[in-house]
């Protein structure tokens, strides 16, 4: 079906079974939606760690997190067996993450970061250097917008340093969400 409706200086609407195109012959400031909008196909995921990952860093190891449990995974672009999100459509993505660590000894630095297969650039969500007591739960959180092209893989890692052994664990639970990662293709 194609329907057009043209008045003087009015929007032009063209409809087909799966899409609606609208153009306006003069400059207007904004796109306005009068009703709530949801889609079942926009790439979007929210995943968390259902069990504590014990002794994964603390010695400077960059530990890539495999969030194993999926709350949302529209488009199935997040793989909960390897922790990778594979960009299904080029665009700007918003990511947010929070990773809770605990340590069994004094540490001197902790961070969490995003990495992509597109370049060697590391995008830090959290970056701390200092002297940090053992046992304290530290949230490593942050959000970022990244321009990504189709096929790029994205991962989240945490690094805790200051000891010769892996004294830092990542907290996870099946009933309480501590450590999670979310992302979506921005409309």
């Amino acid at each position, binding site marked *: 079906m194609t329907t057009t409706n043209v008045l003087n200086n009015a929007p032009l609407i063209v409809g087909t079974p799966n899409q609606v195109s609208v153009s306006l012959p003069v400059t207007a400031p904004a796109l306005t939606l009068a009703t709530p*909008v949801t889609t079942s196909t926009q790439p979007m995921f929210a995943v968390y760690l259902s069990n504590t990952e014990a002794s994964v860093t603390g010695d400077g190891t960059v530990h890539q997190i495999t969030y194993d449990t999926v709350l949302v995974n529209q488009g199935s672009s997040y793989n909960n067996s390897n922790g990778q999100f594979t960009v299904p459509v080029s665009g700007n993505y918003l990511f947010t993450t929070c990773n809770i660590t605990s340590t069994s000894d004094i540490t001197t630095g902790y961070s969490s970061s995003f990495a992509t297969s597109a370049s060697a650039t590391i995008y830090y969500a959290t970056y701390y250097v200092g002297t940090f007591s053992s046992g304290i739960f530290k949230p490593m959180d942050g959000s970022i917008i990244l321009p990504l092209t189709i096929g790029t893989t994205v991962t989240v890692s945490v690094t805790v340093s200051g000891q010769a052994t892996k004294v830092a664990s990542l907290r996870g639970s099946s009933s309480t969400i501590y450590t999670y990662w979310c992302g979506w293709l921005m409309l």
Partner: protein
Amino acid sequence: MPLTNVVNNAPVVSGSTNQISVIRSGITDTVSLNTPVTTSTQPAFMAYLSATESNVSGDGTTVKVVYDTAPVNQGAYYDTTTGEFTVPVNGNYIFTASNILMNTVLVTGYNAALNTSASGVIYYTSVYAGTYPANSTRTTVGSIFLPLTAGTRVWMTITSSGNGSPVTSILGSATTVYTYFCGYLVL
């Protein structure tokens, strides 16, 4: 698909189970709810600091952060020379920022805040008070939604206090993203 008539350049939206009709300005846009959606015109930006700003606070000075490199800047509403985002369209915006601060000498407080030209209200994303020893690095991270009107300018500041001289730097790098500011007009 029901079509709603359009008169006198007025915004019009109509919807059905799987479709929405929307008004777009200037050029023809296509919106489909059966495939992922992206737009090249929705205001969105991500900007980061490509070099460390050394010894800019620590003595209570409030410093505007000028994120000088912008991998995402749809509509070019973020100015990399001033650090300010100018709201192009009335609406609700999400902002997220992470500022990594380093102090070479002990400080007793630090914060990061979002500021707007609309009022004197300060929107803190992080506030810390305590004792932070020499040569430590920490993250001030946060996200917020704000309703904003066109023309309003938005920028980030950081403040570090507790020392008589500026001993706090903002961490930046051309190859690693530490300190950044993102914003987006929410649909």
